[in-house]
């Protein structure tokens, strides 16, 4: 982050000499104005509100109140589901992206998978919840088939679509395609020449993977995993459509709070929102660092 700042300072010093550069700023004004109005200010409003009480005095009481068992458990379940679905989605999405980009499969499979991934990532939200209720709900197709064909009762075995595993399995339906969509261009960046060069220098398939692919791809891989984490952490509609408000996720709690102040303290709602932003911000900070690393090669 230090280098661009220095470079920026260099521009402003040079600006008076070269007139066109000083005009260049105007080109990004609409973008920054939009970001300020619809991204930064609304968030700042909540962040500031989290540190105030009902009369506008500064306080840390709202943050302290976040340690109520009900709220802590909401954060915890959200973290678990997000982490599990991000790791699972990243692994399976990577395998799929790899299979179609570099796996030597027929060429037509790639656009087919990309199109399907676009559609499936759209299939998040309420329709996805309906689909999984029809699949793995109590009267769902897979549940009834397992019962009638194998005599296996999924629900007696401890499975519930309204549980951690049910939600994770459902989230994977949009996590995997998202990984495929984001990672495929990164895999395209693995130039064929590198493989040829590695082979000429005597690397086998394993050596190519270990010394070329992994070092180049891991920042995008890990970075995208963090994106998936944030994506699942902020998801409302799928969980809401699936469970109503029976599962105590932090997004569901916040949704109820925005609707009807269930915590009986608007400023505790702001603190709840702040906590979510902090968690996703940490994973995103790591993503940005990793992205800078991967840009070096996948420019």
């Amino acid at each position, binding site marked *: 982050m230090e280098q661009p700042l220095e*470079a920026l300072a260099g521009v402003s010093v040079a600006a008076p000499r070269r007139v066109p550069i000083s005009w260049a700023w105007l*080109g990004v004004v609409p973008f920054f104005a939009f970001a300020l109005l619809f991204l930064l200010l609304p968030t700042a409003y909540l962040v500031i509100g989290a540190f105030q009480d009902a009369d506008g005095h500064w306080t840390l009481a709202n943050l302290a109140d976040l340690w109520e068992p009900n709220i802590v458990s909401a954060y915890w379940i959200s973290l678990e589901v997000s982490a599990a679905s991000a790791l699972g989605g990243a692994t399976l999405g990577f395998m799929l992206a790899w299979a*179609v980009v570099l796996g030597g499969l027929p060429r037509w499979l790639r656009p087919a998978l990309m199109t399907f991934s676009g559609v499936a990532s*759209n299939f998040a939200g309420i329709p996805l919840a*309906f689909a999984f209720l*029809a699949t793995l709900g109590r009267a769902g197709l897979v549940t009834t088939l397992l019962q009638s064909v194998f005599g296996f009762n999924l629900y007696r075995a401890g499975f519930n679509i309204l549980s951690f595993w049910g939600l994770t399995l459902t989230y994977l*339906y949009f996590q995997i395609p998202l990984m495929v969509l984001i990672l495929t261009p990164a895999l395209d960046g693995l130039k064929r020449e590198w493989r040829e060069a590695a082979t000429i220098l005597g690397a086998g398939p394993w050596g190519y993977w270990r010394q070329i692919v992994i070092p180049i791809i891991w920042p995008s891989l890990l970075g995208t995993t963090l994106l998936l984490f*944030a994506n699942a952490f*902020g998801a409302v*509609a799928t969980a809401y459509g699936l469970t109503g408000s029976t599962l105590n996720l932090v997004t569901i709690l916040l949704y109820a709070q925005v609707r009807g102040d269930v915590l009986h303290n608007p400023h505790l709602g702001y603190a709840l929102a702040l906590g979510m932003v902090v968690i996703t911000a940490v994973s995103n900070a790591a993503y940005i660092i990793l992205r800078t690393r991967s840009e070096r090669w996948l420019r």
Partner: protein
Amino acid sequence: MKRNRLGPWLALALGAAYFLVPLIATLEFSLRIRRGTYSLDAYANVLSDPSFQQTFLFSTVAAVATIVAGTVLVVPTAYWIRLRLPRMRPYVEFITLLPLVIPAIVLVFGYLKLYNSSSILPMTGAAWTTNILLVCGYVTLALPYMYRAVDTGLRAIDVRSLTEAAECLGAGRVTIMTQVIFPNVRVAVMSGAFLTFAIVIGEFTFASLLDRPAFGPYLQLVGANRAYEPSALAIIAFVVTWACMGLIQVFARDPRSASLPTP
């Protein structure tokens, strides 16, 4: 090399199974409304529901407005960053990533507080201003995907040479944008638009909390009150989206795009 293809095929087969089984199950469930026989009654119920038609139209219009507004915002910005302000790139990219950091529910919570009817800019005061706020929210949600798609498209063309060539031929800024840059990133814009449409059409959080008559809240309402219609709606949503994606892809097909990924 042949030996290695087992892995890719296996990955693809597993993926296909995971993605197809819920679709098949949903389809099967949606046909079960009559006891003992398959019928399309659930679909008939849904399609004849006026609320379905109204909310679906509303969300489609919102999606198109989002795509247009997002394109107008993102393409010139990404172009300008590449051409004149490469040093600003980390900052703009940081902002385009923020919608992934700040969950949608937090954003809309902020909107409700910042733009409520007693604020300086009371956008939630009237229906049409709330609609504008909704579209602005959707543009924000789509920003990461839109920006990345357009930036990738710009990467594939030589922005500087194209601009200089156009300038030599006497083109102004607007002409360069509309006649030179935009046609060259059309495929990228389309892929961004295709993701945007995907995000907006069934979006629930913004629409529900801003209290707009959109498709997402309608789906939720049906889900809470009916048994078989939700599955029919899920299938309809899937089929309609698939059709839109197909149309967009046909529209975006460009003879050059096939050779772009491997320069």
